[in-house]
């Protein structure tokens, strides 16, 4: 039923698009920009969307990097992501990120807050302090199933 010309068009279209697709995926591999724009934290109580960029560019918020990134305060190139050290409760301690520089005996793993506690303290504490945005009282104001 299909004429030869139509088939050839389809073959060409498929070939060109596959190559184009391959090139696009190869040229722009999925990577998060530095600093990240937004972050999605996955948790058992639902995911939390955190607008990272808004917190340091937003005119009403305008935080400095060091307000949250409390390690390597002197060197902006070496900020750590929260999750590097604040591991989830079932992860192996001490975190590899700490061991990169520190000796194991220097780290007090008991003192280091777990990820859930650290995030709840950081987000909720700050929001309550400034009376801005959602507080810690309602889970569903941040967590989304």
């Amino acid at each position, binding site marked *: 039923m299909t004429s030869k010309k139509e088939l050839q068009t389809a073959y060409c279209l*498929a070939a060109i*698009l596959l190559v184009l697709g391959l090139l*696009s995926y190869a040229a722009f591999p*999925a990577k998060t920009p530095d600093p*990240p724009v937004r972050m999605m934290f996955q948790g058992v109580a639902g995911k939390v969307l955190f607008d990272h960029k808004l917190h340091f560019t937003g005119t009403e918020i305008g935080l400095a990097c060091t307000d949250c990134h409390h390690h390597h305060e002197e060197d902006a190139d070496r900020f750590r992501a929260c999750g590097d050290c604040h591991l989830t409760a079932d992860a192996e301690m001490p975190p590899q990120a700490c061991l990169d520089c520190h000796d194991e005996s220097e780290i007090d793993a008991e003192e280091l807050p777990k990820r859930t506690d650290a995030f709840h303290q950081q987000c909720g504490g700050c929001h309550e302090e400034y009376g801005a945005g959602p507080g810690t009282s309602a889970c569903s104001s941040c967590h*989304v199933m």
Partner: protein
Amino acid sequence: MSKQNKYIVSHAPFWHDGSGIRERSYHTILAALPAVLMGLFQYGVPAVGVVSVAVGTAILWEWAMNKAMKRPLTIGDGNAALIGLIFAMLIPATTPWWAVAVGTLIAIGIGKQIFGGIGGNPFNPVVVSLSILIVSWGHLVDFDTALVSYDFAFNPSYPLGVLKYFGVAAIDDFSYLGLLLGQQAGGIGATFGLGLILGGIYLILKGCVRWEIPVAFLAGVFISALIFNIVDPSRYASPFFHLLTGYTLIGAFFLAPEDSSSPVNPIPMLIYGAGGGVMTVLIRNIGVFVDGVLLAVLLMNLINPLLDKIRPKALGKVG
């Protein structure tokens, strides 16, 4: 039905105007292009990758299925390319290539070829495929998670998600004009409302889509959302918001009127469209899912054969 248009048929010989499946497919692809181009512009090279891989693999799978089933090659009719394109329009621009390829495999294989190819599928292949993908890899096709790295000039949250989880008060940020012009997170080709409407009108004028289904679908969404909104405006969003967000417009013009899974008679078409629209709003406002268009279309596909029983009596049939 006595006032039907009567066509005057002249004597033979007749002349075929050259239209066929191929022309229908390419008209539909053309109609989808404004929305797709807007998506490519908004999401950049990753979106180009997703669209290319989707269309390319769709043609590839069609070819492979034809070969495996020892049937004549049907890739020339453009229907596979169309399925790939519409699939790409619904998914986020950061979907990994393998998920896109599996999605088109499901659409072409399980959605269409298993039933004997074009014209045999009881469900819209794209909707079947995307539903299966959402069940399997929900995080990949979740717009809030997938698009975190895009720095938009507008509110970057998926509007229907905001409505579902944070209520009507939280959607004040979205202006209807912005939503219409594609200033919302969503699928590559599903956000640019104006382009979808223009494409839909083009399809209706070309005769690829009958006006009954999209109009009834949109009317169903509008009226049921309006009733919800009047009953309790503090809990249910306005009908315009429902019209302009999620998959509503692409659903009305490209998903619901798919050839073999939608009815052919006027009254069934109206019921089919309106039912899909009402189900969409019911799922969004009462159900647990964020967007209801996919499930509503699947559900209406399911009752499509029943709807088509409502038809004029055959000429000369007694009793």
